[in-house]
């Protein structure tokens, strides 16, 4: 009998009392409730909880994002595998790790030897027999100098057990972080404790495979010879960051941050002859025989300027210029080494160490390739900042080439004997750059056939005040009709060959919000006025250029653009603010950096169309020649190298649409396409590692591209700036206004102390005469030499390929040349050859 039936029988047998009945009913109710609780309540709790969690997740993701979510498209990276091993050599292609000096390659120009035991590379220039070492030869016990004086031995520095010995003999420097939550450590590879090195023969060189056990990392460095160059390559596919079980549990794993190859190749001791050449600003020399104030920090600077996404400036940087190209030189009288980055320059840094750095008595110069950057993470404004490392690798292959040029013994006494100088390095760099532009970007840069105007007048049209009231905020400094009248006034004074650049001509003036539609501000004369100015300029045969801000968003994104869609994000989840240098030692936030992808997708075509509708034929493009950054915006993620490629595509597009394209400062990838460089660097960084400033960049570019100085009326010393322009073969710029400058008092544009045309006219006419005589005639020629005439004397000579010499005297007294000609004080002299 079933239980139910049994109960029924019992119930029938025993009559139920009222209490029992009530109790039974109550029990049934409880049972019902229990039954309901068991499933409905769970759902009632779980489903809302799930919804809340999903919403929180989505909100957090949407609101803040995280650099882990960023997907960089790395398909454009050049990624190669390690070179195949030449198994015909060594033991199945491998060389014993304690083998002595072994010749790996010989191409008739260079011979490459490597000793795994001493970690020493030897490169011999077969044309002269000169030998170069990957680290300097020690001073042995009992060694004497050329005067017979005994030298202090430094053999102890080379002991393998010592830290200095390990650093010195390391063919590779590695920067890494152990947990991703702390700063990086840079060490010589031989300082790593769990290191396995395997040496292989490859075609034309040697392959070093390093396995760093304590970092769960392996990578390969290939050193080969090619023509008269030593080539260092770090193949991307051979970098293996093993994600072991331990690391998978926690993303606090070691990361490879940077690698440098042969950092002590070409290193010199304190007091030796020679110098390093760096393309810092216009160019800078670091002498080995100049005692300097101790500085135990290396000079370290990114090629193409800082990356605002990672590099935080706390105050305006008055002392630094940018590096416009990935090149450096090491010059001794009898030889020069020219090092050039073939691949990966956007993520490379130039490092220069002076004696004392790493407790070693050497000057050293090398490139460091950065795979991962550090950034400051901050949860709230004003909160503590933590240094963290990004998770994504930023470059593919890294390839650097060092060219060896040497000559037999140099004797200063011999009149016909010439030493290598920075000019040779610059000329070599120019050749390499031209070749690279052709192979990388398909650009065959032609030699200039016609010189441009020797003077550029930047007309500052106007800017809005920051007062924020209801009155018209625009301060009109110059109108289009003023431009005409100034042009005509100058023409009457004999200044006829001019380039006119309009600056801040768009709606809202100089601080135009680049996300808005660009239209011509009616305060300056409107579209009609601009068109009329254009036709006037054509009629006068003057060049009229329109200055354009592409990537700075002054204010907040507008016209449909939002922070999320249009602004660069830092890996720290903050948007990238744009800070203006307020010139009195302070940075002032004013807007954002725009995502290059946003500009590419939404704005570039509109901008070109608008510019064309104004009749523009020459455009000056801000940011493309001097500003490069990474974007961590989820929608627009872009690495620094990808930004560079995007810029190049834009430059091509502008070139297709306009007759003449100009960029600022002159990063080499932009110069490849530009017809003109504005505000070319005319100074070196004010760093104690640099002893002398030289026109390295100018020597590289001269004859291939026209370049102009920054407005010389905005310099502290305009007279000096004009002479510098003449020395460096640069056309000059002035920034002028029609109205009084102090109208700009309450705008953000406070850099122009003296700019009213009426005050500048005489000075401009004089400058025009000077550059017409000393710069313009040589603009299509190459600079073949540049030198200081006498030690401690500020008199310089620039020689051009046509044979002319331009002497510039910065001193207060006249300088008499050997032939009797006199270069007047604070003046110049042109001697045609």
């Amino acid at each position, binding site marked *: 009998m079933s239980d139910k039936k049994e109960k029924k029988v019992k119930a029938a047998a025993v009559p139920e009392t009222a209490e029992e009945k009530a109790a039974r009913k109550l029990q049934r109710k409880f049972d019902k409730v229990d039954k309901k609780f068991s499933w409905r309540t769970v759902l009632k709790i779980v489903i809302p909880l799930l919804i809340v969690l999903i919403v929180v997740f989505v909100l*957090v993701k949407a609101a803040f994002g995280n650099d882990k979510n960023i997907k960089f498209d790395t398909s454009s990276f050049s990624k190669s595998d390690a070179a195949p091993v030449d198994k015909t050599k060594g033991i199945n292609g491998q060389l014993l790790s304690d083998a002595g000096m072994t010749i790996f390659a010989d191409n008739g120009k260079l011979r490459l030897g490597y000793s795994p035991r001493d970690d020493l590379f030897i490169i011999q220039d077969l044309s002269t027999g000169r030998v170069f070492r990957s680290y300097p030869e020690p001073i042995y016990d009992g060694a004497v100098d050329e005067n017979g004086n005994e030298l202090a031995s430094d053999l102890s520095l080379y002991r393998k057990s010592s830290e200095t010995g390990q650093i010195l003999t390391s063919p590779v420097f590695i920067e890494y972080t152990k947990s991703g939550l702390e700063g990086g450590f840079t060490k010589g590879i031989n300082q790593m404790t769990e290191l396995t090195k395997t040496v292989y023969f490859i075609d034309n060189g040697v392959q070093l495979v390093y396995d760093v056990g304590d970092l769960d990392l392996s990578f390969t460095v290939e050193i080969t010879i090619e023509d008269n160059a030593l080539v260092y390559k770090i193949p991307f596919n051979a970098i293996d960051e093993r994600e072991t079980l331990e690391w998978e549990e926690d993303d606090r794993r070691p990361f490879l941050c940077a690698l440098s190859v042969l950092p002590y190749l070409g290193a010199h001791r304190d007091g030796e002859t020679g110098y390093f050449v760096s393309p810092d600003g216009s160019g800078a020399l670091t002498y080995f025989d100049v005692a300097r104030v101790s500085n135990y920090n290396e000079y370290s600077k990114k090629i193409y300027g800082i990356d605002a996404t990672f590099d935080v400036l706390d105050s305006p940087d008055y002392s630094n210029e940018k590096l416009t190209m990935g090149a450096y030189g090491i010059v001794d009288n009898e030889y020069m080494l020219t090092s050039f980055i073939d691949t990966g320059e956007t993520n490379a840094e130039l490092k220069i160490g002076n004696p004392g750095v790493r407790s070693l008595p050497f000057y050293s110069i090398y490139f460091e390739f950065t795979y991962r950057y550090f950034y400051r993470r901050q949860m709230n404004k004003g909160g503590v900042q933590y240094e963290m490392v990004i998770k994504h690798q930023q470059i593919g292959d890294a390839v650097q080439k060092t060219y060896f040029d040497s000559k037999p013994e140099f004797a200063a006494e011999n009149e016909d004997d010439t030493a290598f100088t920075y000019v040779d390095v610059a000329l070599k760099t120019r050749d390499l750059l031209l070749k690279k532009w052709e192979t990388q970007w398909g650009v065959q840069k032609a030699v200039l056939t016609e010189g441009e105007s020797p003077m550029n007048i930047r007309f500052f049209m106007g800017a809005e005040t920051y007062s924020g009231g209801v009155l018209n905020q625009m301060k009109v400094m110059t109108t289009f009709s003023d431009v005409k009248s100034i042009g005509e006034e100058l023409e009457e004074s004999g200044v006829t060959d001019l380039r006119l650049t309009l600056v801040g001509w768009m709606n809202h003036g100089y601080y135009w919000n680049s996300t808005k539609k660009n239209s011509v501000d009616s305060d300056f004369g409107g579209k009609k006025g601009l068109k009329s100015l254009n036709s006037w300029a054509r009629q006068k045969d003057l060049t009229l250029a329109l200055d354009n801000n592409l990537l700075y968003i002054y204010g907040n994104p507008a016209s449909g653009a939002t922070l999320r869609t249009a602004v660069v994000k830092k890996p720290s989840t903050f948007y990238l603010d744009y800070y203006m240098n307020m010139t009195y030692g302070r940075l002032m936030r004013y807007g954002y950096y725009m995502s290059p992808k946003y500009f590419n997708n939404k704005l570039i075509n509109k901008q070109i169309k608008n510019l064309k509708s104004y009749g523009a034929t020459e455009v000056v493009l801000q940011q493309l020649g001097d500003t490069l950054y990474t974007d961590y915006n989820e929608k627009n993620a872009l690495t620094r190298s990808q930004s560079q490629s995007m810029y190049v595509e834009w430059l091509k597009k502008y070139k297709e649409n306009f007759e003449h394209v100009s960029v600022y400062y002159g990063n080499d990838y932009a110069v490849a396409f530009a017809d003109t460089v504005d505000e070319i660097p005319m100074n070196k960084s004010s760093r104690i590692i640099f002893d002398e400033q030289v026109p390295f960049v100018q020597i590289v570019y001269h004859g291939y591209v026209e370049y102009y100085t920054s407005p010389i009326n905005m310099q502290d010393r305009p007279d*000096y700036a004009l002479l510098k322009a003449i020395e460096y073969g640069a056309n000059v710029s002035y920034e002028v206004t029609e109205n009084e400058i102090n109208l700009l008092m309450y705008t953000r544009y406070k850099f122009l102390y003296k700019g009213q045309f009426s005050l500048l006219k005489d000075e401009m006419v004089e400058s025009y005469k000077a550059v017409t005589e000393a710069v313009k005639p040589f603009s299509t020629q190459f600079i073949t030499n540049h030198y200081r005439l006498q*030690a401690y004397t500020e008199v310089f000579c620039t020689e051009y390929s046509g044979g002319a010499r331009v002497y510039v005297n910065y001193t207060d007294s006249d300088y008499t040349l050997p032939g009797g000609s006199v270069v007047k004080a604070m003046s110049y002299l042109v001697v045609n050859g």
Partner: protein
Amino acid sequence: MKRKLLKLLILTMLASLVLSCGFTADAKEPYASYYLGDNGAYSIPAPYEVVTVIDFKTTEEGRLASPEDIFIDDNDVIYVADTANDRIVIINPMDENGNYTLKNIIKGDATYASGDMSGLKTPKGIYVDADGTILVADTGNNRLVEFTKYGYFKYSYAPPSSSILSSEFNYMPLKVTKDTRGYIYVANSSDSNGILMLDGDGTFRQYFGANKVSLTFWESVARLLWDREDRLGTVVTLPYSFNNIYASSDGYIYATTTTATPPQVRKINAGGSDVVYSGYDFRDMYISTSYGASTAQNFCDVSVDNLNNMLIVDQQYGRIYEYDQNGINLFAFSTNGTGYGQLSLPAGLEVDSQGRVYVLNKGSGTITVFQTTEFADQIHAANEMYARGKYQDAFPLWQTVLDRDSYYNLALKNMGTIHMREEEYKEAIEYFYEAEDAALASQAYKEIRAEFLRQNFPIIASVLVGVVVLWIVWISIKQARRRKYGPPPEKKNFLTPVKDFWGRIKNVLAHPIDSFEGIRYENKGSYADMIIIMVLWVIIAVASEYAVGFIYRGGTPREFIRPMQIILTALLPWLVVCTVNYGVTTIMYGEGRVRDVFIGGAYCHIPLVLFSLPLALLTNVLTNDEMSLYNLIHTLIYVWVGLLVYLCIKSIHGFHPVKAVIVTFITLVGVALVVLLFMIVYGLANQLFDFITQFGKELSYLV
């Protein structure tokens, strides 16, 4: 051929190594250059450029180690207290090649403790007499010591003793100087009593120029509430001590103190009183970075150039400030850093006879030498001419300065003042307008106005008399007609509502109690009136701001007027007071309805509506001298408004006059509470938002 010259250059450089490294002049200096004007910091072309750095890197004697003081004598010989090397280094003046060479080093053979009187220990101060006697603050040996000009020991001063000096007196001289009378001044370490003033023989004379105790607001309150005994055990606030002193040739003692707040730098006369800079705050509010770096500056040395301009250096930021003898900031320049021409923990500053500025870098053990640029020379020359009263000579020089830098306000002010002295007031005021200097513009305007009145008095008087006569005649005719024909019949036209409105306004002003009672008990007020009055008030408030004259705007341009802010300021008090008042009167048995309170509140604005704009317009013909009259009228208007508010509360709610006072007071307290509440809620909301942001960011790293 030419490339060989480079080799020669290198060899020559090696052969001629001196103490300094020469500089290639640059078109742009590696630091900020600006001046501190009345309304902010304005960038200028660099006033000083670096000519060289005396870095000692090639001397066998080695570099300076943490040097703390520098002195330059009348012959431009440089003396350095090379503190960590326990020595004095003497450097020859700049030679014709722009180089500096070592002259002498004073360093005892043995330590002072072992009996060698010439032994120095961490000397931190130095002064050199006109006869070449070198006076050193031998800090580590707690004494002053004198050396002959050849560097031989001359005299060791005993520590000062006097009954005035307390038993806890600890003698550790940091800096030393002498005035023209031969008194020795010593800045003693951590001595809050002032500068020690000694006779020429080292006898203690008195404390000089003691700093005052600077108390915070709460410390002052505590002093008022508790007496000395009650405050026993609490931290004692002492005056700040001095960290550097300088005696100028005209008899003043300049001193820098250890405080970051005023008085950071003092100019003290022989009587111990401050001159020029009394109460002056030397803090540079523009030096902090946008990332919130501290603005706490440490002014560590002061010096005076030949033109009596005062230069001070800030160790924290490496910034140098120059003030003219009137205390006007001429320049601010330089910065700390590792680059050429940048400073490294500057500890001392001196100016030589050529106007070159020497800054002693404690961090790098070097001396950075600046020289004036053409721009600074122009300003110095113009200022000098101006100070000497050669105004006609100064004028073109100031014009040159202005041509070079259009933002240089001092030029505008001084050019305007020169016009003033020539009684060319109209020209002067144009300069003052451009310089945005209301005080000077007021002086010029006063003269222009007086001149105008002098010239036009007959016309003005005639017009005034004519107007009065016409007005009297008009009234007389009107009254006569009224007597003859009775009051004119009421005609309704489009102006009737305006006339009615004006009648109600007049009634409020003439009979406020009746008017307010009428609102409550006779339903006389209307929402239309309320809206019209408040709209008028908003318009007039905005218009008044724009109408205020240049002088009464303090020179601030009209572009800075923010109408939205004015509208908010005009409406918020009405809304808040009425709301609070209604709330308060509801629980205090007030009879007024919401409607009555708000309409009555609007009526209270009538004096403002009527008189604000005329008063603002009046400022266009007033000078600063009539400021008190302006303030009086302004105050009277607000007193009138206050009275109306009181009468409004009393009449609308039917309160007894005393109760109305209480309710008015409670209303004000309520308004204060609402404001406080708003601030708290605003602050909390900010905190909450910040918390959510932080929480979200943290989460974003987890999910």
